[in-house]
């Protein structure tokens, strides 16, 4: 062989190696010769949080030895959806993946998720579509078709500190008032005023739709109506938002987002510096870091009449990639994951509330807080973020960011409401 030919041959081999090395590893990569399938699935959360899936993974792989699960986690929620989007665009997305409640609407609209109704109602399904509460499907349902199933939930409730309330001269127990049908917005605001007079925060809220829209609902207001964002113009919604804005400015309320890191909402709450703290079941973790458990209990957001309102429920969804080459195995995973047994395995000892009927004991067995049933009541009647809002990626964040400017007093309330309407109409109006 001449030197030139040898070089050419080497170049050809190098090119072939390079091309094979650079080629993608799309879906079919998981197919083994022995009929085994590797199923890729993705979620968000730091490495230590992934341990909660171990029991379920062990159970699943033992039950389905032909399916190997490959978890592809992304550490932060903020970075998860950008990565998922690039994977979907390049057709390299996992077979099954989590979608956050603020992105589900967009992915449904873009047609990248597999419809699930036929399989959910079929013999392979471990739970019926009706085993999940209608309100928490949120943007995962479009025109009656289901594209995602809630993994688990976290209903937004008001935690209250009995000692702080007593120190402010409040003798009524909010949970008892709720049971008596007398947990009204007027009572709640009156308690907040007394707490403020006693040198405490009335309530601490995180600035997100869960707290903001729950309060709007409590005032009897509307956020979205007929596909239009009406919160800035609906009189009762406006009254709710004004109450929040005024409360933040006169320090009746505190924004958890703005409290200093070393003295955050959990610290304030266990030091009895606030009467109420809006949050989910995860607040227990904060209380356990130095708080006296029996001193705290929960109550739903109040209403004008004292009757239950629709409270917000944080949710995420498990979905199947429409382009998955393992649709059957993907559904097997999905239905096991969201089933009663699956949730019991995943959520045991955790702070989430199951999304499926029948797994309530996860919340009630510990008998904490005393009115733990409230979590389930709010979940059953509650709502995940509005489908109209989650259909536009970034819209919820834009609304929250703008509301924060109002809470901080950077923008006047009336001007802020006008700007909010323009902002939402602008983002909603565009196609992309």
């Amino acid at each position, binding site marked *: 062989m001449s030197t030139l030919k040898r070089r050419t041959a080497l*170049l050809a081999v190098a090119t072939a190696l*390079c091309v094979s090395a650079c080629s993608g590893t799309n879906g079919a990569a998981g197919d083994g010769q022995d009929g085994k399938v590797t199923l890729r699935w993705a979620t968000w959360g730091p490495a230590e949080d992934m341990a909660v899936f171990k029991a379920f993974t062990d159970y699943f792989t033992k039950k389905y030895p032909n399916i190997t699960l490959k978890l592809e986690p992304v550490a932060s929620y*903020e970075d998860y*959806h*950008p990565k998922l*989007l*690039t994977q*979907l*665009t390049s057709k390299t997305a996992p077979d099954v993946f989590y979608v956050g409640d603020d992105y589900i609407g*967009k*992915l449904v*609209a*873009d*047609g*990248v998720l597999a419809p699930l109704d036929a399989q959910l109602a079929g013999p392979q399904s471990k739970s019926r579509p009706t085993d999940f509460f209608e309100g928490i499907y949120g943007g995962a349902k479009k025109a009656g078709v289901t594209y995602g199933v809630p993994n688990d939930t976290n209903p937004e409730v008001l935690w209250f500190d009995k000692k702080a309330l007593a120190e402010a001269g409040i003798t009524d127990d909010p949970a008892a008032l709720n049971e008596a049908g007398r947990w009204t917005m007027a009572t709640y605001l009156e308690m907040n005023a007394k707490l403020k007079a006693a040198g405490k925060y009335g309530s601490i809220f995180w600035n997100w739709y869960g707290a903001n829209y729950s309060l709007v609902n409590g005032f009897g207001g509307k956020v979205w109506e007929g596909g239009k964002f009406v919160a800035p113009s609906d009189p009762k919604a406006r009254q709710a938002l004004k109450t929040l804005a005024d409360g933040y400015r006169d320090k009746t309320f505190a924004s958890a*987002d703005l409290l*200093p*890191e*070393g*003295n955050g909402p959990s610290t304030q709450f266990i030091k009895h510096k606030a009467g109420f703290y809006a949050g989910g079941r995860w607040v227990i973790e904060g209380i356990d870091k130095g708080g006296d458990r029996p001193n705290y209990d929960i109550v739903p957001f109040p209403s004008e009449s004292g009757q239950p309102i629709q409270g917000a429920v944080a949710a995420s969804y498990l979905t199947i990639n429409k382009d998955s080459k393992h649709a059957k195995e993907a559904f097997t995973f999905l239905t096991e994951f969201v089933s009663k047994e699956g949730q019991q395995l995943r959520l045991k000892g955790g702070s989430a509330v199951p999304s499926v009927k029948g797994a309530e004991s996860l919340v009630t067995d510990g008998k904490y807080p005393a009115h733990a049933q409230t979590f389930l009541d709010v979940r059953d009647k509650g709502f995940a973020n509005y489908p109209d809002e989650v259909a536009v*990626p*970034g819209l919820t*964040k834009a609304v929250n960011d703008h509301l924060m400017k109002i809470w901080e007093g950077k923008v006047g309330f009336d001007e802020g409401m006008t700007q909010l309407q323009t902002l939402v109409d602008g983002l909603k109006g*565009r*196609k*992309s």
Partner: protein
Amino acid sequence: MSAEPLWRRRDRRWAVVFLAPQLLGLLVFLVGPLGFAIVLSFMEWDGLGDTTWVGLDNFRALLTDPGFGRAVWNTVKIGLITVPGGLVLALLLALALHGVRGRTAYRVIYFLPVVTSSVAVSVIWQMILGGGSDGILNGTVQDLFGVTLPSWLEDPTWVVPAIAVVTIWSSLGLNVVIFLAGLATIPANLIEAARIDGAGPWQTLRSVILPLLSPTVFFTLVVSVISSFQAFDLIYVLVNPDHNEGAQTIVYKVYQQGFREFRFGLSSAAALILLVLTLVVTAVQFKAQKRFVHYES
């Protein structure tokens, strides 16, 4: 006129073969995406659905968006602090190290932040500059003097200076090494001649060293300005601009609009504006170099 010899034609063919991988990479990873971004900037596209031609709407939207204006201003502010601050500090350090025994060791020490992952750098500085008593700096000052310092990474007034300090720290080593290389090229006899003629240290620096070092200064200036315009990863981890408008830069907006809000048309338009801005500033620098850059003939 005789035809090109065979060996020369063969050489040219081989040149093309050897250049092909590089050219292919350039086409696939630079020219292609740039062309795609230019086309996208006139469209609406969410990354998954159909594209729609919208003409100049994306540019109009950006140029009338106060948030984007704020990002441009933040980017400029970061550049205004980091470029002159970083260059002057690097030059002073290079002058101090030039001719010093064991300068290789110093060079390694100063270069360490450059080869350290920007994420690691950001996390370390987060610990140092963190707000409240949790931050090493604030906590120490609070404990020693009872003085409460601002929340450097959260306070909109202080976040840009804080970013600038970290950026300067992390890029200092590279500039020092470049300046040391430039100083090494200055003939010792010129400095010696200046001293014999009675020039003091300051005069030698001003009239001999700086003019001869000016091509190096110009190079670092151009590179530093471009880097400051492209600032993203360090700021993203250090400050989390999601919750701090004072730290949002143009590249952050490109990322936010594209990958958070799925608005790739708008995102591409923002990237193009950044490209044009960078080209204009670089062109101005090249124009201005005639006045201050001295090339030895």
